[in-house]
């Protein structure tokens, strides 16, 4: 198994593991909203101490929107991995996919950083917690780096494509 195949399979795995979340998340929130007294589903989100209030709904919607951005980025990355597997490295399609991946990841990371910033302002109770090792903040920063890297890669592929075209049309 070469590296391209390994890359594609890894992304496929991550993608298919996320599909149930995308499909079931809105339904689960709707169920909790419709039946506030239910005890089957324990929604692990903040602001649900006094029932599923507007604040909790806003949090879930924001969380889901950001997750969708990440999912869209992963979808574009999966398409990019497919193109790599087909050996179509220098094509307009690769430039487009890497640009979209970068845009989605960057938007998701920036949005999430703002989101957790606002969320920590609302939930501040006079205590500051410090996480050692890989915290949410670190991971989001890493996602931002990956997003920007993909945007740079897209630019590099665009330049490479132009050079390749010129080389192909040199007699």
């Amino acid at each position, binding site marked *: 198994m070469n590296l391209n195949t390994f890359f594609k399979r890894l992304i496929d795995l991550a993608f298919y593991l996320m599909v149930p979340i995308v499909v079931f998340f809105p339904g689960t929130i709707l169920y909790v909203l419709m039946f506030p007294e239910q005890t089957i589903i324990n929604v692990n989100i903040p602001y649900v101490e006094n029932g599923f209030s507007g604040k909790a709904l806003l949090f879930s919607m924001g969380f889901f929107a950001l997750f969708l951005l990440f999912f869209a980025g992963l979808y574009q990355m999966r398409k990019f991995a497919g193109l790599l597997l087909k050996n179509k490295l220098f094509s307009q399609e690769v430039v487009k996919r890497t640009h979209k991946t970068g845009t989605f990841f960057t938007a998701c990371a920036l949005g999430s950083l703002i989101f957790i910033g606002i969320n920590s302002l609302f939930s501040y109770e006079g205590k500051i917690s410090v996480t050692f090792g890989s915290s949410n903040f670190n991971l989001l920063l890493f996602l931002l780096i990956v997003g920007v890297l993909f945007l740079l890669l897209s630019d590099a592929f665009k330049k490479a494509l132009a050079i390749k075209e010129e080389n192909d*049309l*040199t*007699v």
Partner: protein
Amino acid sequence: MPIIINLDQVLADRNMKSKELAEIVGITEANLSILKSGKAKAVRFSTLEAICEALDCQPGDILAFSSPNPSQGGESN
């Protein structure tokens, strides 16, 4: 593109076919077609030299410059 390729005309003058020239020069017919149609972005000196040698002509017989803006001068065909 303001560079015009007159290869067809030179070939007709010499009574030579594209296939023949491609064989002598050592390039593919597809590449020669790219050159003839004006789609080529660059021509290697080695290719130009081989073409001139095969057709017994000067680079100026094959290539011509035509300015897109006539006020700037240049030869127009």
